[in-house]
């Protein structure tokens, strides 16, 4: 049994790690701004395609890959400073719906510019592989496990110990009071958008390598990340991390049984719905009006 399950379990850990990292990025942004950024995957996909184009034109990966991260951070910053403030007084659902607009624009632009051909990214870390049983693990997959843990730890420490992190937690609690206390709320929110954008860019590069550089596929890989964030109640970062890993492992492990494998795509949805039912209406989730 374990010998059949083992390769899928191992592969699922790396994938789940990237879901976890994306989920942490979503939670950090939500906690600070009240926005659940549904364009997370779309912006990341566009950044990854820009990297692909740069490499295709002969530009070194050492420039192209940071270029993806920079693009995602910039787009997030522009949205966060120009558009998000216009609806900052609205409820979370409205603010989240607005990010759908950004997603649709991103997908449309990507289809126009890159739509027809096949694209792929192979990070330099994918060329070093180790055999674990039947599975070959690359350094990219190892990074997909290590990065999220480090980033989550760093995020928790940042939120607890730093002035900016404290301000973010304060804004999450009550934006109006925080503003009245003289905290530069818009600047703090912009920082949250940038941090989220950076995580988006890193996740996009890893997912483009581990899954595919497909416009729609990569854009909608936000769904497992979203499921991880929802299981973490859009608030608990370590829970989000664990949930991301769990989703990846479970989804991949279903490949062990061909009769069940066909339904593994439902994994993030079922887990998210389950989390909602378990945590239920009686639990409080911090939100912003």
């Amino acid at each position, binding site marked *: 049994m374990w010998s*059949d399950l083992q*390769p*899928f379990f191992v*592969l*699922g850990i790396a*994938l789940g790690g990237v879901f976890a990292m994306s989920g942490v990025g979503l939670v950090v942004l939500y906690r600070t701004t009240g926005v*659940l950024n*549904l364009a997370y995957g779309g912006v990341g996909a566009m950044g990854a395609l820009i990297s692909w184009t740069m490499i295709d034109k002969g530009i070194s990966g050492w420039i192209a890959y940071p270029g993806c991260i920079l693009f995602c951070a910039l787009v997030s910053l522009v949205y966060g400073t120009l558009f998000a403030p216009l609806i900052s007084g609205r409820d*979370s*659902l409205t603010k*989240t719906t607005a990010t*759908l607009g950004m*997603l649709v624009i991103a997908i449309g632009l990507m289809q126009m510019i890159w*739509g*027809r*051909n*096949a*694209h*792929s990214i192979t990070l330099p870390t*994918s060329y070093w*592989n180790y*055999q674990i049983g039947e*599975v*070959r693990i690359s350094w990219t997959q190892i990074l997909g496990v290590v990065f999220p843990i480090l980033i989550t730890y760093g995020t928790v420490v940042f939120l607890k110990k730093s002035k900016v992190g404290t301000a973010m937690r304060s804004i999450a*609690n009550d934006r*109006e009071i925080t503003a009245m206390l003289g905290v530069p709320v818009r600047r703090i929110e912009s920082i949250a958008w940038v941090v989220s954008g950076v995580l988006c860019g890193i996740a996009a590069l890893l997912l483009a390598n*581990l*899954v*595919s550089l*497909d416009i*729609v*596929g990569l854009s909608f*890989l936000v*769904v497992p990340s979203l499921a991880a964030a*929802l299981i973490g*109640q*859009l608030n608990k970062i370590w829970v989000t991390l664990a949930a991301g890993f769990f989703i990846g492992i479970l*989804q*991949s492990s279903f*490949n062990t049984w*061909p009769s069940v*494998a*066909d339904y*593994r*795509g439902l994994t993030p*949805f079922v887990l*998210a*719905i389950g989390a*909602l*039912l378990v*945590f*239920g*209406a009686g*639990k*409080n*989730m*911090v*939100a*912003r*009006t």
Partner: protein
Amino acid sequence: MTKTSRLSGSRRIGSLLALVAVASLGIAACGSSSSSSSDTAAPAVADTTAPVADAATGANLQAPGQCGMGTGTPATGEPIKLGGLATNVPGIDFTWITTMTGAYFKCVNDNGGINGRPIEYTAVDEQLDPTQIASIATKLIEEDKVLGLVGNTSIIDCSVNGAYYAEKGFYPIIAGVDQACFTSANFSAVNMGPYYSSLGGAQAALRAGAKGTMVIVSPNLPGYDLIDTGVTDFAKANGLKAIDVLEDVPFADPASLAQRLVKQAGPGGAVVLDFTGPVVLPLLQAIEQQGLIDSVIWASSTPPNDPSVSKELSAKWNGKFLVNAEMNVLDSGLPDQNHMEVIRAKYAPDLPSAAFTQFGYLAGRIATDALMSIKGDLTQESVNAAFKGIKNWKTDMFCKPWYYSSGAAGNVSNNSDITVAPKDGVWVKVEDCFDIAALPNNPLDAIRANEIANGLNVG
């Protein structure tokens, strides 16, 4: 003081989840789009050599830049309306075919049209909604009054609209997908479709030494379970175990999928893939990363025969991915292939040079030759009669001349083709023309008998 209100968590988050689900569906099912081509672009490069184009005899050589009448003068008369439709959903984009068909018609229009009349081609995208595709067909035929349908490439068009087209006397020239396209006398495809193309891939895999189990993997979309029966029937007929796998596209976990397919095929087995190039590429790269290239024999239907795919494959794949190519290789250097490249570069530069582009080119060219052969008025009746009457239509892209109507139960005019494999970033021919296997559940035996009896594709 404004209090931060506590969310009713499950309701709010439930709304957000519903929003995500609806958004996913909504973006995937964006409304149909249409494009038309009757504009007079810049005049084609003048070439005084008259085209040798005769649909009746099938000698179809044309000089580069020439199409149709080959006059070099834009057509300005009353437009001849033609229509087409193509599936366009995430993971499945068949608009390459209709776009290239439209490009060919633009070239025709720049070269005098059909006796001075330009072709006005309306190509509509469809999103696998039977109601939508039925309304598209009705609109094209009854409102837009198109005289014929060319380049249709849809997963469900033949099933949904076949009876309607028969009722209206339409004989579309298509690139078929749905098996219904090949079991009806009312359609004739320039390609052989995924059923026969996957079967060709399976044949190549068997010749390469596949034993034990043969796995066919295709998109989890309507009709593909039937499409896969060609491979499963062939495997069983040759003493192999057959497994049919339907996968959602794009793949959520290519590395895990690669491991699973290898386990299912077993040592010495074969896996026949049936996906478009952009979809299958991540799987191929995961297969390589996992060190699974030599674990089984990998084969495929036509769509990955696309330079953007071979370019992304490393040398480890050289000769190890057997792709059934329904047309001749893209770098054959032969006249029709070169002709296609010139037209593509001028009128559809965003399209890659790929198998789908070849389909669109041939559909447009066959239709044009048929239109040019009509003596008298161009009506829905005369146009469709001309389409249906095509035989012995030669091109260096096919193994044998093409014809519309086999006289048997369904048309599979392109039923012989080649195998290609990647080599150093390009596709090369590894097997020359071979006949796709006749099986008890396909009509190829009867079709080939009729070909001989009626001289439909004599060399």
